[in-house]
């Protein structure tokens, strides 16, 4: 498997991103507490993590350890606790406490998100699902002027994930693995600088999961920065082949003992 040159040289095992590229995203002392009735359930208690440009980070953790929560915070789909000193800096800009407009723009252009349960829109065809991110990102005129290029890119992405022949199908007509590949293509439509994937293989059988991970490796090889979350050691092992493995335990981040780089 090919690996991206810039990450090969990076020492594995560190919590903080390292290397000359610098962190594209750096989360500092993230706190997230869910309130269940009167009980506070702290899930993240000061997680710090940095991801360098072009890096492939796998986050491993038991079920319920807060991996999804962390990823949601990194993707600005959720907000950390107030007044907890949490900070997420993306490309030099603080996201915690940023305006809704800033966060919307961050989600549109800077970050791509792959969900465990795909979350494709059932009414849209495969190619429309992929284009959705672009439809959201650009106004009517902006979209119209980029139409041709965007259509090309969507087809290209779908071809790359092996679904070039299923453009007009509805998600319901696809297998789980195929849906996940559509979701990945969708996450990439606007060329995000950071790809976040939450258990992308969690719902798939091992063989299918492997094809998805191969796809990630390829993307990484093409220079894509990404963070993949999983509870599965084997998946983490495979991901670790390309980058760094971190372990989330007790609401804190630590380098995986077995992690390699």
């Amino acid at each position, binding site marked *: 498997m090919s690996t991206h040159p810039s990450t090969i040289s990076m020492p594995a095992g560190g919590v903080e991103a390292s290397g000359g590229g610098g962190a594209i995203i750096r989360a500092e002392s993230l706190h997230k507490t869910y309130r269940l009735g009167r009980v506070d359930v702290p899930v993240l208690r000061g997680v710090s993590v940095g991801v360098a440009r072009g890096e492939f980070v796998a986050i491993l953790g038991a079920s319920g350890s807060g991996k999804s929560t962390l990823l949601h915070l990194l993707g600005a*789909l959720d907000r950390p606790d107030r007044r907890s000193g949490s900070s997420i800096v993306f490309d030099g800009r603080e996201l915690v406490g940023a305006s809704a407009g800033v966060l*919307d723009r961050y989600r549109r252009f800077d970050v791509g998100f792959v969900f465990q349960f795909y*979350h494709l829109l059932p009414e849209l065809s495969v190619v429309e699902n992929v284009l959705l991110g672009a439809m959201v990102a650009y106004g009517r005129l902006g979209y*119209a002027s980029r*139409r041709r290029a965007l259509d090309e890119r969507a*087809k290209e992405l779908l071809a790359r994930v092996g679904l070039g022949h299923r453009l*007009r199908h509805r998600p319901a007509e696809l297998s789980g693995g195929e849906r996940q590949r559509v979701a990945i293509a969708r996450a990439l439509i606007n060329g995000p600088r950071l790809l976040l994937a939450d258990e992308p293989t969690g719902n798939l059988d091992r063989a299918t999961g492997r094809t998805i991970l191969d796809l990630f490796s390829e993307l990484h090889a093409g220079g894509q920065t990404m963070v993949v979350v999983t509870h599965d050691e084997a998946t983490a092992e495979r991901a670790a082949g390309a980058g760094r493995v971190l372990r989330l335990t007790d609401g804190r981040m630590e380098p995986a003992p077995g992690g390699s780089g």
Partner: protein
Amino acid sequence: MIPPRSAGSARVVAGSGATVARVYQALLTRRYLTSKIMPLLAAVAVMLCTGMVIVVWSVMGGFLNHLVNSGRVLIGDVVIEWPNAGFPYYGDLVKRLEAHPMIEAAAPAIVTYSLIVLPDNRKEMVLIRGIEGESFARVTGYESSLWWRPIDEPLRKDAKREDPRLDAGIKGILTEVLENGRSLTVPGPVGGERLPAVVPGIEVSGFAARRSEGFFEPRPRLVQRGSSGGEEVLSIFLPRQGTVTLNLVPVDSQGRILDIASVTLRVANEFHTGLYEMDKKTALVELGELQRRLKMDRATRIVPPERPGGVVERPDGTESFSEGFEGIGVEPARVTTVYVRGRGEANAEAVASAVGEVYREFAAAHRGEVPPPGTIDIRTWRDQNRTMIAAVEKETGLVLILFSFISVTAVFLVLAIFWSMVAEKTKDIGVLRALGASRTGVAWVWVRYGLVIGVIGGLAGGAMSYAIVTNINDIHEWLGEAFGLYIWDPRIYYFSEIPARFKWLDASVVAASGVVSSAVGALVPAVRASRMDPVRALRFE
């Protein structure tokens, strides 16, 4: 390569660069509309709600309007009244009234009560109105209220053409009967002479029976004669053979009651206003005849014996000493009432104040001989029919209340449907938000969706109600024929047709409210969903 499917979704509308409007909204609206049964149900719900409200409004509005206007039929716009004794110089008053620019016509009349004796010897207490056919017709809808007339077209429900007025055999006499009704006279036994006659309301005599098809036909009656109980079936057509005896109570110009006067008159025709109270309790009589019988015609002025021995001047110019009641001059003819009709669409209150103005001048010209302006009654047709109009207004209020309940129910129905549709799609909202769609952007998807459904439903509802309202009588008839279901039995309502009116303005208001309700119904849950953090929307079950 397959041509891009989404080509249609990116139609560029020049200049539509609104910050909120994005391609995905149009695409999703379209897809949500075509891929689910729910929006169809929602559109049908909007259609039924708006359609139902418009139909109810049209029917009730038409009904109430018809009812109120039928109260106006034999009254005109304004009534001047000085009951019992009446007032003189009414010819001058009529002339002055008709000279006023706001007044179209005026007609003198006498209104009194009478115990009448019908051909089957029944006695009925009715309101007698003495009128001149010609002037009364100019002020009121008198001519069109005359029931017996030849007609060419059967009433809508009269499919078997059983209405006697259609009968070619009696059309000849109906033409004459209509003429008789117009003049309130009948031809006398001697050639050329015309005798005063009476035109009772169609329900007065009981000799005309109303059929569910909406017409009246002559009906035989069982007559009891005397206390011995002798019976006889009397089958007559009132305008041909009927006579009515009026027992009248004359009142002199000083307001004193004189001896009861009885007069037997032939029936010229019968009138039908559609207002049961009026049709059952009113009879019209030729004015001159009534004046004579009530001693309100031009007569010798007499003085009471308080001035015995005084010199009295007679109308013929002779003089004599008075002995008891003495004629001292001409007592001009009197009427109790003048009916006034405003010009064009003049508002009744405005006409009433014009009438008051004219009456002041009139009273000034005849000071001491006519009631002073402050005491005479000048009322609009609304005042005159206050009981009935009050009832109708209460009914309207009730209908409006029921109406708002219906509307609120409709709005809640739409809201509930949209709530469930949005709830079902909350995950999509989460996805859109995760892809960077703004809150207003996703909320707009739903408002737009609601608007489209509202417009479809509202237009369909408007079209549906238009079809129903304009064909309501046919539909009603069909229901009656197919299922024996006569919701609107003219025997009860006294309208031969359902008086529904489709009013474009009202319908547009209702349809627009349907659209707004749909948009609001969609907006409320959409705003709620769009305010969620994307993660919560995604986790929403």
